[in-house]
């Protein structure tokens, strides 16, 4: 794989990198700070930032479906981004805390469900092919001693500990994280090395991530646009309209509603219109109507900003023409772009 560490950040790669690292596009100040810099510089800075680990935690909670009413509220889980950013805890212990949280227990009630989910989600096992282990784990969950995944257990927490101690935990975590960030299967030879490093020292995960971003795999990922998750879309709209990250609560209410639809496009469109017309209208980070001197230049700047690509000549012509129409203005341009199919991808 060719290296992408020397890649200079343009509008497209900066937007994509922020989506992958922080789960949102960059704020205006961040764009100003990072455009033209090398990707490796950005990666180094973000991996030590709490915002990266907040996004990481969010992804893990979604992975375990610990969302909505099952979202953990305990400080032992909520403090994880801060501890991970400081290096006071590693990803393995973080996942252990999540699996031992009351929310995980409530989400996966009963021995059969709990042990099945631990085997599937932590170790990537197919329980139908490991029925004996499942039965031993269920007995352990109920307090009866046994040898589960090679470890002596006798309690519900032992079931989690045994799963995390199993070698499949590391391989499953590294494999799924690679697929999430690089959008493809990990190369087998390198995968073995990453797993080995992680098993020896779980704190190595951040440097493994950095290695992935520096590899040609991330340059290839740039070519693969994928539909924005609802959680990324909500943050994206707030950043692009108001240049701010939404409060957790306002983001959650929108995201939960959007997650209820197989095709969220109609509701996304409605939300954009409501946000642009609503009481926060004055907070929109748009030029006031009639104040744009270079209309063509402004249109050409908005496409990379919102879609991560340049406008075609035809798009530029039509958008400039529309901007000059009597009932239209910058908000009309934003509305067209934010409700477009292209904006629904990262």
């Amino acid at each position: 794989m060719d290296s992408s560490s020397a890649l200079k950040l343009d509008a497209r790669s900066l937007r994509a990198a922020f989506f992958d690292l922080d789960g949102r596009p960059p704020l205006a100040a961040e764009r100003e700070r990072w455009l033209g810099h090398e990707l490796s510089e950005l990666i180094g800075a973000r991996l030590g930032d709490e915002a990266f680990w907040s996004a990481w935690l969010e992804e893990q909670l979604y992975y375990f479906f610990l969302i909505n009413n099952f979202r953990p509220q305990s400080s032992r889980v909520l403090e994880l981004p801060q501890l991970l950013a400081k290096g006071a805890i590693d990803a393995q212990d973080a996942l252990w805390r999540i699996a031992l949280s009351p929310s995980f227990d409530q989400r996966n009630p009963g021995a059969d469900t709990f042990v099945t989910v631990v085997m599937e989600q932590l170790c990537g096992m197919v329980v139908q092919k490991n029925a004996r282990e499942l039965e031993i784990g269920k007995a352990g969950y109920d307090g009866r001693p046994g040898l589960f995944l090679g470890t002596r257990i006798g309690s519900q927490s032992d079931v989690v500990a045994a799963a995390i101690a199993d070698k499949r935990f590391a391989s499953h975590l590294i494999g799924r994280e690679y697929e999430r960030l690089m959008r493809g299967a990990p190369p087998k030879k390198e995968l073995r090395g990453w797993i080995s490093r992680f098993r020896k020292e779980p704190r190595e995960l951040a440097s493994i991530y950095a290695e992935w971003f520096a590899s040609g795999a991330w340059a290839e990922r740039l070519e693969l646009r994928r539909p924005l998750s609802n959680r990324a879309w909500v943050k994206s709209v707030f950043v692009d309209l108001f240049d701010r990250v939404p409060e957790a609560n306002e983001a959650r209410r929108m995201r939960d509603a959007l997650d209820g639809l197989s095709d969220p496009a109609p509701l996304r469109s409605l939300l954009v219109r409501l946000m642009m017309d609503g009481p926060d209208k004055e907070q929109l980070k748009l030029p006031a109507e009639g104040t744009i001197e270079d209309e063509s230049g402004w249109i050409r700047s908005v496409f990379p900003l919102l879609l991560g690509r340049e406008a075609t000549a035809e798009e530029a012509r039509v958008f400039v023409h529309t901007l000059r129409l009597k009932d239209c203005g910058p908000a009309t341009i934003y509305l067209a772009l934010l409700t477009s199919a292209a904006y629904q991808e990262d």
Partner: protein
Amino acid sequence: METSSQPKRLGRRALLKAGVAASALAATGVLPSAAASLFQAGDEKRRVILVAFAGGVRSRETFGSPANIPTLRGLADGGVLAPRTRTANLGHYGTALSIFTGVSEARGIRENGRGPDPTLFEYLRRDAGMAASDVWISTSGGAQQTNYSASSHAKYGQKFGANVLDGDGIFNREFKALLASYGEVRPRDAGEAEGLDAMRKALGETGSEQAARVEKYILDELTRGTTDISGPGASDQKAIRVGRNLFTIFKPSFLGIVLQNADIAHGDYNGYVEVVRRNDAALGELWAAVQADAELAATTSIIVLPEFGRDRDLNSRRGLDHGDGSDDLRLVTTTFAGPAFKRGVELDSEIDAIDICPTVTSLFGTSAPFARGKRLSKVLA
């Protein structure tokens, strides 16, 4: 390709058959007489509601305790009862998905991905030519259940998927309050609308009438009281209510409803029985709404089955898990009712939950080529 969803002229034999079935249903009160006369008039369009009465529900608390389920009992009396329906315990998600694919799906309980096998929604859309607006699913289980929409199969997939709508995710007080805080959607000026159209065209996009209808439906539903449903089993109640409203407004050919709240049984047996009772009552309201519309009453059939049952014995928390491999877990009861099915029949033989998919596709004149189940001709009218 001709499909049964397209109106066509009935032959004398089919007319007689339809008339007999409709008269009989009307006599039991399951089908009102007005609807029966419409059915006799020759409208052969078919509609199916398939309810995954899921979350793990034993027959002991349903047909073994008829007082819990007057609606299902009434439907069964006027239709077909299959008390020995075999299922596989593959987790709620995988097993419920099996009902829709006709293939026992070994999916992770918390897996957030589409299955590999085409769903009956995809068969109906791709092979029976149904429009997106004709195939809906109303769910109760949140984000994971939107994956029921379609498979990852190369020949089928998302472009032939169903519209999935999770009632509890959208129709809740918090979201309603959020929308209210934004105020009304401002109508666009003519010039602005024209400009938007031109820009969308330049971006290679076309307007979607379906999207506009869905948006209107969501806004209307938020004012109908669905958001106010709360308490144990609330998300199932919403799923059924949303299904009812979708079905009576859009009149689709197919509606799937997937429930989940019965899983409260792990720690609360009494709560579980209450969920069964409330869901049965909500199904009664759904069926009454169907019967109140002459066109729907004459054309709509319903299938109801749990994805699997629960353990034979209570656990240490006086709840019911699902993992003992007993017949209570593996055998559930399926109810078939409506004009597509026989009346007053109780099957002695076993059927399989994966037979439902090819049976439903056959009702719409197509097949389910990747399903492993078989068409249940013995239940069909």
